[in-house]
């Protein structure tokens, strides 16, 4: 009996399992999840509601049953036999597959300094439960890394009354993905809320009760969190002989170096049309890749087209970014309210990215429209982009008429 097997029951693996059924596959679908319980969404973990860690299931048992998905929680895949087309499970079983999807995700990167084991990474609901249980009023929490996760955690812990110190080796927070003027506003907001920053600071060692910086200073801390990014989980793929380089390498169709095995989500390093391999680490891309992978497992040849987009909530501010803004691009700013603004990023006149920051979700609509402009290959007039009186909907109509 032909079976579809998916390793990894995060956002990507779970979506792929349902997508296979939605797209007409009638045979067996097995979804292997190393964690116990129902598959759950990771984005809400860094945004606890009303004090409790928010474990939001992606689906319930009834939905899994209705889609006839054989979900194996708390079971991990221990080996993939690529030529023999089977996978070995931690419970001793061997599952044959017709097509295999690797959706193994990523793991928090670990510090390399002495005492690194004293820091907790942030990825699972167990990590979140532990960190928020410790990060109560008055507790001192040191967060290593001022990327999106580090900054979201700093905000969430500060709101709960913890004394939060953020340690970052770069000169400014959020350097990787956020335009500098918006990163500066978020930084200022954290400072105003009483978060302490140690920027340009290396970590020499961790010890019980504190972080020792490279310059010898000691940051006292009851809890230490390492938020220095993630590494793709490629161990199984490498052992199976699949090509890996900062992720499981795939072509545009999400096919790995071995026929019949696909990879998608945070673990996959997907080549684009130009041959550049990239990992995306985003909720939406995990879902889009899942759907493309499902189609291609069923025999289609659909290329994955990356549509980078993410959001981040810090205090009452919401950040959204579409595309990949970079400082090489021309930038146009649009102020939409006293505390809300957008920036548009142009490459040779073409809109390639947009970013917005403001209270709540107030920039969401404009970022969505900017994304439609990007997809329409629009070359909007920069003065129109800067003018809040000209709606992006109007610019979109112009672009579509052109």
């Amino acid at each position, binding site marked *: 009996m032909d079976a579809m097997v998916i390793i990894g029951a995060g956002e990507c693996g779970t979506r792929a399992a349902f997508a296979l059924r939605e797209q007409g596959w009638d045979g067996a679908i097995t979804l292997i999840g190393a964690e116990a319980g129902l598959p759950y969404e990771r984005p*809400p973990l860094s945004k606890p509601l009303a004090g409790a860690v928010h474990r*939001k299931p992606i689906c319930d048992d009834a939905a899994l049953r209705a889609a006839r998905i054989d979900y194996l929680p708390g079971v991990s895949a221990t080996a993939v036999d690529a030529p023999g087309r089977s996978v070995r499970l931690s419970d001793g079983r061997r599952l044959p597959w017709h097509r295999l999807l690797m959706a193994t995700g990523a793991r928090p990167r670990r510090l390399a300094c002495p005492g690194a084991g004293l820091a907790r990474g942030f990825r699972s609901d167990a990590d979140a439960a532990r960190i928020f249980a410790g990060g109560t009023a008055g507790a001192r929490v040191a967060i290593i890394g001022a990327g999106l996760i580090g900054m979201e955690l700093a905000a969430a812990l500060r709101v709960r009354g913890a004394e939060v110190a953020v340690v970052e080796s770069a000169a400014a927070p959020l350097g990787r993905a956020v335009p500098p003027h918006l990163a500066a506003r978020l930084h200022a907001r954290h400072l105003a809320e009483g978060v302490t920053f140690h920027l340009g600071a290396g970590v020499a060692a961790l010890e019980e009760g504190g972080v020792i910086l490279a310059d010898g200073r000691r940051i006292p801390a009851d809890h230490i969190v390492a938020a220095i990014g993630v590494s793709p989980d490629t161990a199984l793929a490498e052992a199976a002989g699949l090509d890996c380089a900062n992720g499981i390498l795939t072509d545009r169709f999400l096919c790995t170096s071995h026929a019949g095995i696909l990879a998608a989500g945070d673990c996959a390093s997907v080549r684009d049309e130009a041959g550049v391999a990239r990992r995306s680490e985003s*909720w*939406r891309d995990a*879902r889009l890749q899942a759907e493309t992978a499902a189609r291609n497992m069923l025999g289609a040849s659909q290329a994955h087209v990356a549509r980078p987009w993410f*959001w981040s909530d810090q205090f009452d501010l919401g950040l959204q970014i579409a595309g990949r803004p970079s400082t090489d691009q021309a930038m146009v700013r649009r102020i939409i309210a006293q505390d809300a603004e957008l920036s548009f990023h142009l490459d040779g006149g073409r809109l390639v990215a947009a970013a917005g920051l403001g209270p*709540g*979700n*107030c920039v*969401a*609509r404009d970022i*969505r*429209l900017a994304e439609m402009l990007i997809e329409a290959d629009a070359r909007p007039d920069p003065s129109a982009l800067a003018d809040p009186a000209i709606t992006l*909907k109007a610019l979109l109509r112009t672009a579509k008429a052109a």
Partner: protein
Amino acid sequence: MTDTTTWITACRLDDIEQEGALRFDHQGRSYALYRAPDDSVWCTAGLCTHEAVHLADGLVMDFEIECPKHSGAFDYRTGEALRLPACENLKTYPAKIVDGEVRVALG
């Protein structure tokens, strides 16, 4: 037949952008009002059925509202969930325009 529905004035039609949405709070509950491209008005529950995100911040295109966070989408006239991750329909409420005012029946 007598109309026994209780209509509440929510806002002026001009308060809602054309092909736009507006948040409306009443008696501790939150709703979203929509002004369609044809200037008809509609009312739904305020929060997306996928996660508690207010739809009034979302993008209205034709008769569709898209959630500002997860891109789930609904037909705001019927409440029908049109796109994942939204799969549960949205509750809708009658709405009408009287003398340039938007009135809704939330009973």
